[in-house]
Every structure is written in structure tokens, then in C-alpha cells.
């Protein structure tokens, strides 16, 4: 397991948003985290990368304990996070957004930039434009590209399909899958769109009210009618 989460707890005041969440993601895995609104998916990712403080439990990346690291350090250990909505900085240009992602390395990483631009041709065309001129799908590409600039071992994505047309969502999912096979990147995909996510991933976890209620290979989760009806809504 490249990423291991052990009995993770998180709360907002009196509200317990994560209750003893444990899960593991295999190296080069493509893993879905599913659940309805308010299930705790965003909180899980935010706690993993140090944006929200864990109230208990541990987060291990390749065995290294990241639990108490602040967010700006977590990314340097190889855990990148594309937040809900993408977090593209619209006041900056496309290139500045991308460069920002690799800045912590200090040495300029021309190769990473070229790779990301190869991966997302629409970004290459608008490289010097303001990021505010991008479409929703292009923004999501930029967000993913920026995360890739940090050369992560594990990439966490929070609902990249939010507000995108089904076709664009499909393209992004396929691209993540390709990325996994071509570079060996491990991908964790948080989604409400369970059907779409289970079609591309190889394993999945289902969250409900802050607890893991089901897990297993994606194909099994898809065919498990009880889980589907109870938690995934289709």
C-alpha cells in the first residue's frame, strides 16, 4: 500500500465528519472514494493533505507519517491534492498556475512543464492567457496539470467532474487512467458520480456519514445491488 489511512478522525466543532476511517491504496492503483453529499469525502482529502487537522489516526505515504505535516509540506512528500472546484488561480496566467505547482523544487523543471503541456494541448495553446479565460473543462485540466508539476507519487482529486459535461468528464477520467498506466502514478478519485467513477477505477471505498461502509474492487461494488441502492443512488 503506497497510501495508508489508519483510523482517521476529523471534526468541525461538535460535528464528527470522519469516524475511524481506514483505507489503503495500492501502488499504481486507481481508486474511487464515493458517497452522497456530506458523506465526508472532501473532509477526508483535506485531512490527508493537512488542510484540516486530524483529530486522531494516521496518514502514511510509503510508510512515512504525514499526519501532522502542514499542507505546504505534504505536497513536497509526494501527495498532491486537486481541491474541490480545482483551485485554479484566475488572477494568474495559465503558465504561472503551472509553474506554481513545481515551484517548491526550486530548480526550474522545464521537462515537467513540457510533459503537462503535451498531456493537455488546450493549455499549450493558451499558455500566456489569464486562467480566467479558460472553460470549465480546461480549468480542471489546469488544476490537474498544476498538481502534476509537483511530480507527485499519489494524486488526490476532489470531484473533478463537478459542473462538466458528461463527455468532458469521460475524457478526464480516461486521461487519469492513461496517466496511471504511462507514469505509474497512483490516483485517488473522489466522486459523487459513482457510476462513471467505478467504470474507470479498479477499486473503491464508499463513505457514509463519515464512515467507510463498503469497499472492494470497482466491478464488485458496481454489481453489489445493496450498496448501490443504499449509498450510491443508482
Amino acid at each position: 500500500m503506497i497510501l495508508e489511512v489508519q483510523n482517521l478522525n476529523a471534526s468541525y466543532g461538535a460535528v464528527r465528519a470522519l469516524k475511524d476511517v481506514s483505507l489503503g491504496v495500492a501502488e499504481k492503483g486507481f481508486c474511487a472514494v464515493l458517497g452522497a453529499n456530506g458523506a465526508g469525502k472532501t473532509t477526508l482529502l483535506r485531512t490527508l493533505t493537512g488542510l484540516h487537522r486530524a483529530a486522531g489516526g494516521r496518514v502514511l505515504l510509503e510508510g512515512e507519517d504525514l499526519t501532522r505535516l502542514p499542507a505546504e509540506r505534504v505536497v513536497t512528500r509526494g501527495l498532491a491534492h486537486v481541491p474541490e472546484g480545482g483551485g485554479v488561480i484566475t488572477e494568474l496566467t495559465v503558465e504561472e498556475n503551472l509553474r506554481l505547482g513545481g515551484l517548491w523544487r526550486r530548480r526550474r523543471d522545464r521537462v515537467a512543464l513540457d510533459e503537462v503541456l503535451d498531456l493537455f494541448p488546450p493549455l499549450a495553446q493558451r499558455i500566456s492567457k489569464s486562467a480566467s479565460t479558460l472553460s470549465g473543462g480546461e480549468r480542471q485540466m489546469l488544476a490537474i496539470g498544476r498538481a502534476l508539476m509537483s511530480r507527485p507519487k499519489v494524486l488526490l482529486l476532489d470531484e473533478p467532474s463537478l459542473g462538466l459535461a458528461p463527455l468532458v468528464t469521460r475524457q478526464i477520467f480516461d486521461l487519469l487512467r492513461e496517466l496511471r498506466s504511462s507514469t505509474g502514478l497512483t490516483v485517488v478519485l473522489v466522486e459523487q458520480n459513482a457510476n462513471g467513477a467505478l467504470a474507470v477505477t479498479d477499486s473503491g471505498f464508499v463513505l457514509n456519514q463519515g464512515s467507510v461502509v463498503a469497499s472492494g474492487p470497482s466491478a464488485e461494488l458496481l454489481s453489489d445491488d445493496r450498496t448501490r441502492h443504499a449509498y450510491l443512488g443508482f
Partner: protein
Amino acid sequence: MTTFLNLTLNGLATGAVYAALALSLVIIYQATRLVNFAQPALALVAVYIAYTVSQMTGSYWIGFVAGLLSGLVAGALVERVVIRPIAKSSELNAIIVTLGLLLIVQGGVGMIWGNRQHGFPYAFDYVGRFSPADVFAVASVAVTALLLFGLYQFTPLGLRMRAAAFRPEAARLSGVKVGLMLTAGWAIASLIGALAGMLAGPPFISPNAFDGVFVYGITAAVIGGLDNPFGAVLGGVLIGLGMSYVSGYAGPELATLAALAIVVLVLSVRPDGILSRPAARKV
């Protein structure tokens, strides 16, 4: 015609000082959405240190550099020790604290250096129209503005600072130490404030020396658009020129009124200032 030229040059020289103060306010406002009312206090400390060091060393320029450096350090210290602990509670608190700091520092300076005036020299000869001192004021502010632009636009530090200001959380996820960027912003802003102080100080400094200049500095920042450095410079020059023309052609007693008129005029046409960008989309 020569009157007009004289008034223009004169206005440019005072405008440069307002522009520098406005810049120092805008840098902090951009990063924290806070109008730093303590800015003149930081400039005051810097100028008094410059004064003392000049006295001790007999060199204006060693004092000048000491003043700039102490501005830098004072800004960083205030952000770390005073602003950061209270900024979390509320914006209003932070504003009140900067106001309080202004009064405390002015009192402190009075206790250390005395409330009477001290002579504080110009950098260069100041007699005549567009004297060397005026040229220095305009040139040093212009160079500072350009350096600042270069820093923000073309250096990794500048990119980090902008990212931290616009989207702190996204910046953190990219490995930016947002807190450190805030400190850097305060330090740079206070360095520029110190420069403004040393240009505005002569011929005399006293604990309240910068109250007037500061009012015009804020004015310049507001009409320029509080979140735009170019606006700050433009606002400073506009106020400087406007006041110079009015006091030259209509009488010095009307200069303050001219500044007020400019504010009313500008804000009625562009309520957020000349160069402010449309409110950034939140989410």
C-alpha cells in the same frame, strides 16, 4: 508657461512621496485586505533611526540605508508579533490594532527622541525648481515601483506572494508557505514606507511629521484602487499634481480641498478606484 512647468514638476515630486506611501498600503491590502494605519508609525521609526545613524556616522547615506533596513525589519516584526495573532479573530480588530499601534509608536518615538523637531536633511540640494532633491524623490520612487513590478511579475518569490494573496489554500497545496509570504509582504511594504518617510521628512521631523502625508497617501491608494500597485502610483501623482496646480493658481489654502475634490470626482465615476479590477470571483 513656466509657472505651469514649475507647478507640474513640484506636483510630481510631492506626488512621488504619496505614491510610495500608497504603494506600501496597497501591498499590504492586496495580501491581507487590511488598511495598515500603522504605516506612518513604521516610517517614523525608520526615519528616526536614519536620523540617529546619520548623526553617529556623519553620513546621510549610511543613515538612509539603515532607515530602509529598519523599515523592512519593523514591518516583518509587526506582522509576526502583532498582526498575525489577532488577524485570526477579525478584520475589524486588526484595523483597530494598527490604529492603536500608530498611537503607541508615536508616543514611544516622542519618549525616546523627544517631541521637539529635529533637523532632517534632504538627500540632495533642494533649492530651485525641480531641485536635485526633487529629482531624487521622483527617480527613487519610480525605480522602486519598477523593481516591485519586476519582483511580483518575474520572480518565483513574486509568484508565491501573488498566489498566497489571491488563493491562500491553493497556494498551500502547491507548497507555498503562505505565512512567510505575508511577512515578506509587510517587510517590503514597510521598506517602501520608510523610503516615503525619508523623502517626506525634510527639513524637520517630529512624532507627528507624517500625519498629513499619510492622509494623502491613503487618498492616493483609494482613488487608484486599493488593490492595484499601478493605481497607487497613478493616484499619488494625480493628488500631487492636483494639489500643486490648485495651490499655485488658486492659493495654497485650497490645496486640501483640491485633494478632496479629486477623491469625490474619481470615486463618483469609478467607485472602486481608477484601476481596481472587477471584484474577484469568490469560490
